[in-house]
């Protein structure tokens, strides 16, 4: 690593990273192998940045906050959805396979196109937290339309982990349905019936197969599957699927 390694981080070792590579517009994809020096404190994101700095500057990754708040560094490591910034390398085995999230179009290497993820949400789901606005701030007109539901960091891990999304492009997926249930729990002036109508669809709440991989993958304890089940209970109570 480029940074000085603290003594308590232990001796430096190495791991082989098997990194997915894809360039938009070019046919096919491949895995590249990189030997990366690590310590007990190295994260997957740290290792990928080391590869970028020392081995291959063309490797595309996306990250921001480095502490599991922004949700931008979601990837698959050894087939499991994780946030790269808080995933330690030490316990992952000698060879570590790194891939982009599934069920979301891959743009380049480990970067997926989150526009499709966001497009799944109902129109009523906002995308900026009201709590993030300073009391004296003068928000621009129409900011209400972008107010986001709490907890979820919109990383897309749940959508990638969902086996139903893997076979059905039309399924809106766990994050959007959890957001709908969040709005039912705290409507904030949103029309409750409109949210229920949106979810009451064969490709909405009823498409979920109760696999619970979304809950297992969620790094933010949103528990999407439990929220979808609660949403279904509400829908069943008002008369079932349309």
């Amino acid at each position, binding site marked *: 690593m480029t940074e000085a390694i603290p003594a308590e981080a232990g001796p430096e070792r190495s791991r082989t990273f098997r990194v*997915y590579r894809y360039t938009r517009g070019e046919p096919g994809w491949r895995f590249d192998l990189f030997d990366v020096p690590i310590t007990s404190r190295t994260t997957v994101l740290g290792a990928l940045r080391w590869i970028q700095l020392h081995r291959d500057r063309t490797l595309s990754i996306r990250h921001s906050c480095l502490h599991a708040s922004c949700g931008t560094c979601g990837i698959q490591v050894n087939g499991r959805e994780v946030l790269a910034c808080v995933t330690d390398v030490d316990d992952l085995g000698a060879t570590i396979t790194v891939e982009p999230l599934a069920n979301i179009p891959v743009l380049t290497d480990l970067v997926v196109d989150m526009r499709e993820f966001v497009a799944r949400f109902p129109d009523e789901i906002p995308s900026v937290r009201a709590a993030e606005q300073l009391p004296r701030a003068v928000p621009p007109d129409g900011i209400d339309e972008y107010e986001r539901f709490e907890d979820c960091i919109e990383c897309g891990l749940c959508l990638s982990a969902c086996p139903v999304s893997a076979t059905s492009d039309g399924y809106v997926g766990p994050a959007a349905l959890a957001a709908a249930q969040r709005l039912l729990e705290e409507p904030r002036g949103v029309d409750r019936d409109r949210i229920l109508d949106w979810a009451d669809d064969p490709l909405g709440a009823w498409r979920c197969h109760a*696999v619970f991989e979304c809950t297992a993958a969620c790094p933010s304890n949103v528990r999407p599957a439990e929220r979808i089940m609660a949403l279904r209970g509400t829908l069943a109570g008002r008369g079932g699927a349309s």
Partner: protein
Amino acid sequence: MSERPPGADAREERGPVLRKGVGIPASGWIDPRGRALGGFAFSANRVTGLGLVFYLYLHLGVLSLLLGGERSWNDFIRLATSWAFLSLDVLLILGILYHGLNGIRVALVGSGIVADRQRALWWSLGAVGTIALIAATLHIIGSR
């Protein structure tokens, strides 16, 4: 909800991109790597479901042996009472028990009745299924 898949407009606008991650068949049918209990339960449900559909057609095929008369049916009965065939019966009962009991679990969880008890249900119904499977196996062994 729109009839078009979510994100379809954006997808058409930007042109073709790789749709799925790697390690997943083009159909996206199954990716068992790193999955949790719910993922295992779902995959096993799909596999046992396919097995039961296969058995249904096999069963219909076996019944059609009756059209061949008494001899063809008796030949089949001799095969059906062999140890090898009876062990397949145990496998069939395992598939039926798993698929049925997991179906009860999914129904209870999926209807919101016990939305947050999927793991406990899997283990409890698994215990019920194991006892039933042992009883069925003993019955099969005793009936030969």
